């Protein structure tokens, strides 16, 4: 053996072209699907990312707030790339860059030095601190660290510094969103409750929503009602700022004083029951006024319920403009239902979105066949089942909790559907199954301007119907033979 550096010669399995072809065919079979679903120790092509990513999105939603990742540097870099690619906007965030020393001695020094540098460099009004894995494993005590930072002058006087524990080995980005939002609100509203004061405003919690078009749509609806509002939190300017030749580190976000005063609001409404349950519970215990938690206004029925809730909370009638819009949305549905009726869909995404997708599809007479969530709960499964069972189009629908996109691939190739609703990560599975992918979720790295097109409200219904039906018509045009190629469709 000519190996001249004392390295053991290892057996390298030669994978023959025949074997490659066999595996390629085998992974499309029902037999493989069974084995795939028995998988235990391994996740393949995950559909979600970690908690701190969600925490960072919340932080971007407040005025002059710097997201600060306490942990090793790579995490912050990944989050930045994710938001850059999805929004095609800058997303400034910093980290404490913990290294091996931090692992041995704890992360306090890194946190302190980091806070001092970041406050000097980025001049925030608030630093939103959240953790990645490293400090969670070594047990950093953020409460004490931040207290010490104040005492030792590492944090400028009066600097707001809410913090949340967002370990990546637990939950997904929606849980990090919840934890950070609650921490920020607790910090901002501390001591701000005034007995008898009412701002007259709606506090609105949209949840982990990376579609800036949705935010603008909510605002338009509130303005049509004449309801003054405070978004908790509003990323629509920060991550979709107008191009005017000036770069701003903090181009928007909810004003801190408005957020502080939200504790004296007239009403608080969340449309993300699965994303912000903790924040909502805390709000119920601490905020003045009425509170409600309802599902995302996606599809006609859920938008109706949303408008009625606003109408009830603020004792205002549904404005004529929105009534007319509903008329146009249902008109769009009747104009195009024949292209969706009976079509079979697979859907995956975050819990609140899944509920929305399934409801919308059923309204159109489409059949959700595979409904998959990579981080779901029994409660979500129950709700989805109830929605499916309430419609004749939902009977065939099966729900898969805590599965990944490799499971989804098995479903798509063994039990055929006509289309997939998801995000960019679904493109490999969709391609292998030869079906179109509708990118309604997060993240979207491979299409432009999708995050500006709202999916909620009546306008959202029109947008989704338009995109889906036209895609099916495109497919007909692209694949039909000459004698069936018609001017009219």
């Amino acid at each position: 053996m000519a190996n001249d550096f004392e390295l053991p010669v290892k057996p390298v399995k030669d994978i023959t072209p025949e074997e490659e072809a066999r595996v390629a065919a085998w992974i499309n079979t029902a037999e493989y699907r069974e084995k795939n679903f028995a998988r235990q120790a391994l996740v393949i092509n995950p559909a979600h990312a970690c908690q701190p990513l969600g925490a960072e999105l919340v932080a971007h939603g407040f005025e002059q707030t710097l997201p600060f990742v306490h942990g090793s540097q790579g995490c912050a870099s990944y989050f930045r790339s994710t938001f850059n690619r999805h929004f095609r906007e800058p997303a400034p965030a910093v980290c404490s860059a913990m290294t091996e020393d931090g692992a041995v001695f704890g992360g306090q020094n890194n946190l302190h030095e980091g806070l001092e540098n970041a406050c000097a460099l980025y001049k925030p009004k608030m630093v939103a601190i959240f953790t990645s894995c490293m400090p969670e494993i070594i047990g950093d005590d953020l409460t004490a660290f931040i207290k010490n930072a104040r005492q030792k002058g590492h944090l400028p006087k009066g600097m707001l510094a809410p913090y949340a524990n967002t370990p990546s080995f637990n939950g997904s980005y929606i849980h990090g969103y919840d934890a950070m939002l609650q921490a920020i609100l607790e910090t901002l509203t501390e001591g701000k409750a005034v007995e008898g004061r009412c701002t007259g405003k709606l506090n609105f919690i949209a949840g982990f929503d990376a579609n800036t078009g949705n935010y603008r749509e909510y605002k338009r609806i509130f303005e049509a009602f004449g309801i003054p509002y405070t978004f908790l939190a509003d990323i629509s300017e920060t991550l979709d700022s107008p191009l005017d030749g000036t770069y701003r580190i903090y181009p928007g976000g909810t004003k801190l004083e408005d957020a502080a005063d939200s504790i004296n609001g007239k009403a608080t409404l969340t449309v993300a029951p699965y994303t912000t349950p903790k924040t909502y519970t805390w709000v119920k215990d601490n905020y003045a006024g009425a509170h409600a938690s309802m599902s995302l206004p996606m599809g006609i029925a859920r938008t109706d319920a949303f408008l009625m809730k606003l109408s009830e909370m603020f004792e205002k009638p549904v404005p004529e403009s929105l009534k007319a819009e509903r008329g146009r949305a249902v008109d769009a549905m009747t104009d195009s239902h024949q292209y969706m009726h009976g079509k079979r869909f697979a859907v995956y995404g975050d819990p609140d979105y899944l509920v929305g997708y399934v409801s919308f599809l059923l309204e159109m007479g489409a059949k959700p066949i595979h409904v998959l969530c990579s981080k779901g709960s029994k409660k979500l499964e129950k709700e989805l089942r109830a929605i499916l069972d309430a419609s004749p189009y939902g009977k065939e629908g099966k729900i898969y909790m805590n599965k990944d996109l490799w499971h989804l691939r098995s479903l798509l190739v063994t039990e055929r559907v006509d289309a997939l609703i998801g995000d960019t990560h679904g493109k490999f599975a969709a391609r292998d199954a030869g079906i179109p992918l509708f990118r309604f979720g997060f993240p979207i790295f491979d299409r432009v301007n999708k995050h500006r097109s709202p999916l909620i409200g009546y306008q959202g219904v029109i947008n989704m119907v338009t995109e889906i039906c036209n895609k099916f018509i495109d497919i007909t045009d692209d694949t039909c033979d000459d004698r069936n190629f018609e001017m009219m469709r």
Partner: protein
Amino acid sequence: MLAAKIAEVLNEPGCATNRAKSAKDRKKGCTKQLQPGAAAGGCAFDGAKIALQPIADAAHLVHGPIACEGNSWGSRNTGSSGPTLYRRGFTTDLDETDVVMGAERKLLAAVGEIVAKHRPPAVFVYATCVTSLIGEDLAAICKAACARYGLPVIPVEAPGFAGSKNLGNKLAGQALLDHVIGTVEPERTTPYDVNIIGEYNVAGELWQVKPLLERLGMRVLASISGDGRYRDVAASHRARAALLVCSRAMLNLARRMEERWGIPFLEGSFYGISDTSDALRGLARLLVERGAPPELLIRTEAVVAEEEARAWSRLTPFRERLAGKKVLLYTGGVKSWSVVSALQEMGMEVVGTSVRKSTEGDLARIHALMGEDAHTFDSLPGMKMYALLKEAKADILLAGGRSQFVALKAKVPFLDVNQERHHGYAGYEGMVALVREIDRAISSPVFREVRRPAPWEESYLAEALSPPGGERAPSPSPSSSKGP
């Protein structure tokens, strides 16, 4: 363990700067201490994954929580001419229980799953912050997995907290040295066998270069690691010469291969016409020195002359359009100088370049190209980059994706030259593509539109009232609008 590995990969006896340091400083290596509180680049894990994942037929398993693979799978634009297994995002997705109880058994089972159902020739297993902190013995598990499943299972110990992305590149190189290279003998060898080291085939750049080498009669024994195959990498110790194309990333690998197996290497670049020619000539010379027939040199000159002439004839029309245009360059390592010379060849003016991942050699080259008082900068936070764009009055920024949107806010055209680029820019073909894309970006009418004031702005009236033709008021440049 980890500390010893890091010291090993940073040990560069050939580096003058390193030799001049005290023993203590030398031990620290040449990586800069990360600054807490600043915007950060990728971590060592990211770097290791970037360096090895292009080995396309292998499975790449991330042993860690959802963070590391959930945020990154599928996001490297590296091409494979065959297998697609490297694209599959495998992770053990550790949860709280795993963190408390340990996940070594889970990892072993995960490797078993992969072997049984995806049939790779080898599995790379990546450590992460979590597994290193809870003390998972990756080496031991991989050894056990190797014995149990009868295929190479390679531990890649580059947890994120170890340091920068660049350090991760080096640790990946070390993993190849420790576990892969030299473990397989090639079926045959020729006097024309070369390794390409540090080319990851982003946007298919390897494919712009490989045909050139083949035209010279060279055989790429192994590409480390773009469009790579496990067996080829394992047998790469029989190459006659190597070309190191991203010097900062894999210098340690090339150096050790020279020490162990006597494979001479050349630091070169395929960005730019003359650099490409120099790289081809240099590689040919190394092969001839090692016994290849000297006619290789003549063949090389012939191909170089032909390719250069063809490239220049295709570039001439652009040269007129681009001469005098100002470019700001914000990229790393080898690209910081190789692209400079490429752009200068087009008559463009490079008004500044970054040196953030540059080696001493890179720096020397920058100064040779741009003069001693060259405008160089290290890392650029968004605000500073924005100020620089305004002040330098650059016509275009060439940078990576994360800088893109700051440039666009300044209304400055932008071209992605880092990993999210969609066109390959290597070799003669790539240079033509680069220049074409720069021209497309600079000449896009969109920038005229975005710079033109809206009708309700004061400056609009001035422009509208200026006499047509002749003496027009200068259209507002991006630097005329208000600063932050």
